[in-house]
């Protein structure tokens, strides 16, 4: 059984159980390893990808649900917001263990694509689903504000 969708800008057909979570289809069938497994229950955000431009938890999204739709993973980020986010992440030295950071970058990018000038409350609302056990939260917040400033300029 195969599922066809647009993966990082290109048509992709994955031959896999349609009930398989998108996370595992991306990792084990498409071979894209940037999206991480952290909880399997949409509780931690490590598996965040964009589905038609919106952040979703790929660990609870069946592959069948993305048929004909557009999926972007950390490997396929292209938007100017994504670039600003990633530059700010490095500038502010956000990552520690780094395992959650793909998901953090995906959520932060989706936030800035929707809201070019997020407040702290907007950041709390958009990012509280992404757990970081290293607690890099202060730097994530600062990096999102920094990216927003750069995009405004």
């Amino acid at each position: 059984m195969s599922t066809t969708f647009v993966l990082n800008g290109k048509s992709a057909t994955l031959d896999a159980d349609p009930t398989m979570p998108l996370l595992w289809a991306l990792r084990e069938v498409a071979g894209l390893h940037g999206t991480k497994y952290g909880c399997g229950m949409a509780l931690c955000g490590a598996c965040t990808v964009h589905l038609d431009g919106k952040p979703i938890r790929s660990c609870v999204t069946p592959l069948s649900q993305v048929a004909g739709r557009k999926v972007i993973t950390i490997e396929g980020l292209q938007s100017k917001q994504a670039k600003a986010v990633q530059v700010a992440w490095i500038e502010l030295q956000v990552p520690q263990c780094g395992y959650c950071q793909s998901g953090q970058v995906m959520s932060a990018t989706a936030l800035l694509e929707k809201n070019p000038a997020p407040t702290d409350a907007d950041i709390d609302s958009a990012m509280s689903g992404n757990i970081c056990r290293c607690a890099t939260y202060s730097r994530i917040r600062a990096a999102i504000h920094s990216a927003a400033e750069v995009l405004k300029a």
Partner: protein
Amino acid sequence: MTAASNILPQSRRAFLKGAGSASVMALTIGFEWISSTRRAGAVAAPASGAPFAPNAFLRIGADDSVTVIAKHLEMGQGAYTGIATIVAEELDADWAQVRVESAPADAKRYANLVFGTIQGTGGSSAMANSWKQLREAGAKARAMLIAAAASDWHVPASELTVSNGVVSHAGTNARAKFGSLVKTAATLPVPDQVTLKDPKDFKLIGHKAARVDAAAKTYGSAQFTLDVVFPGMLVALIKRPPLFGATVKSFDAAPAGAVPGVVKVLQVPRGIAVVAKSFWAAKQGRDALQVDWDDSKAEKRSSTDLMAEYRRLADQPALPARKEGDADRALRDATQIVTASYEFPYLAHAPMEPLGAVVKLSANSCEIWAGDQFQTIDQANAARTADLDPAQVSIHTLYAGGSFGRRANLESDYIVEAVSIAKAYGADGTPIKLQWTREDDIHGGLYRPMYFHKLEAGLNAQGQLTAWRHVIVGQSIMADGIFAAMIKDGIDGTSVEGAANIAYAIPNIAVNLTTTKIGVPILWWRVVGSSHTTFAVEAFIDEVAHAAGEDGFTLRRKLLEHHPRLKGVLELAAEKAGWSSGPLPAGRGRGIAVAEAFNTYVAQVAEVSVDKDGHIRVDRVVCAVDCGTAINPDIIAAQMEGGIGFGLGAVRYGAITLKDGRIEQDNFNNYRVLRMNEMPRVEVHIVPSIEAPTGVGEPGVAPVGPAVANAIFAATGRRMHVLPFPKTGDT
């Protein structure tokens, strides 16, 4: 692309399998030579392009690349960057040219000098034990590059300078990048003695060197164990007993075996392994598995039963961990007595990357890929499991997606599980990845132990603190395994650290320990003993200050008069937090706490707001840290920030509880950790110092809990005696 070429180059074997280009082969020769002789000239006629590898920690390529070989695991605390900074500083390397790769398991070359003969990372020791070793490694290589230039240019070595990866001679304007000197340097002897830099000349140490792993971790390309793939690799999950100490009575493999993609169902010592072609198939297979467990020997008590027993034990005779003066008598003579008890739950480490390991086992070799924290212990345990010699076990250490102590355990639990599956599978060289789910992690034991603390303080007529009696009840982390020899007179130092060694000047001190035996597997957890002792001591000293009518800061400063470094961080944190400006407005409060852990001194001032419903918000934490020489101030700040978030999550929400032996938590829904909206503003101030560097990965965790608890008291008048804090702070 296979994993072997996909992952970071790990060792000779990975190099050979991964690529095999001429330059990679040359690296291999350099590496071989390291252990055989200290003379670079012993390398068989270095071909053009061969690297210069003056010691086990460093390799310089003809392309000017400087590769630092890390004996430590990078699990987030910045060890790779710190290690590279020390070498690059003494080498005067160009930071942009510096790379880090992980060392193979080898206790001879790569032991943690704090641990003795074990290669491993922990106890906030990566910088402390590498400091002298790596400064010398860098300085000797620098001396050899200078000697090479002096030889090539026929000028005196004393006239040469090195800066940013370039050796220069002012008199002749000769300049050379490291790469062009490699060929000559490799023929020269390694100097026995070398002069290290004066700290005032440091260019990287004490400044901002960017993390070597930041970009890969931002772009999603950093390689974790989860990301290792080999052709034909299988994925295994284990169904483990629901109670600690239970064993398999019988199982029906048929329903699991019927799941498409499941290859084998195997009994292993830790349970039943489902081996499949993918994670999803293995997971569905495990869900379908039917197992009957024998729980006749299992731990079946509940946390509430255990804590009731601990409370009872706290009033029974205990073993002395510290005795100064006569605390019993001083308490009898006191005009005022303050008492309090504190209860601490089991805690899971819950690193973001659930545990996993990839194993390739054949008749005479075992290769392991993992975020490996105790390389030579894991090597020995893997060898024993596989019936091999340790030398036949190679370990490729990858980035670990967090650990907080979990991956460093003496039984090498997840490594041994993976090897046991590969063995049961037939040891035919098939690569097998063992993957834990989050539920496996939360249910999997090796928790921070549960503890009960009872404290009594005596004040004399002048309000002076004259007596301190502290009883601790809980399991011993060191009791089983190779560190048991470190238990002296029945006292496991990790149960009482932060309590037995309190720095406060009190004339009569008694710290006692009762060690319990419970069938729940336990382990060190970030900042180990101080994860509970610092809370008890620092919350209680605040209660004593209140009883004595003193300010918490003032009393601590008085009692730390003879402890300049602790007093130093206390004063710095108080000053930066504006402590002297007096209490915050109604509904808000400020609290302070100090800690010494792993020879690092930390003080934190927390500010909280409590709304009318009792909801607590931690607004701000001001942190002062004295960790000796600040190798990388930005990473030190990051570790304080992260430690504060980690510790705050634990005191507010963290609890693993047992009900009739069964763990009641499963995942991040009911094992709550700190989230973005709960992170306070953190300000970090580093005490300038030229003392040898000490660790920063753990100490920042210790003071935040009591600082926040003391701030809650200032805001509400309520003390926090049971952890985690009540959900709304008002029960």
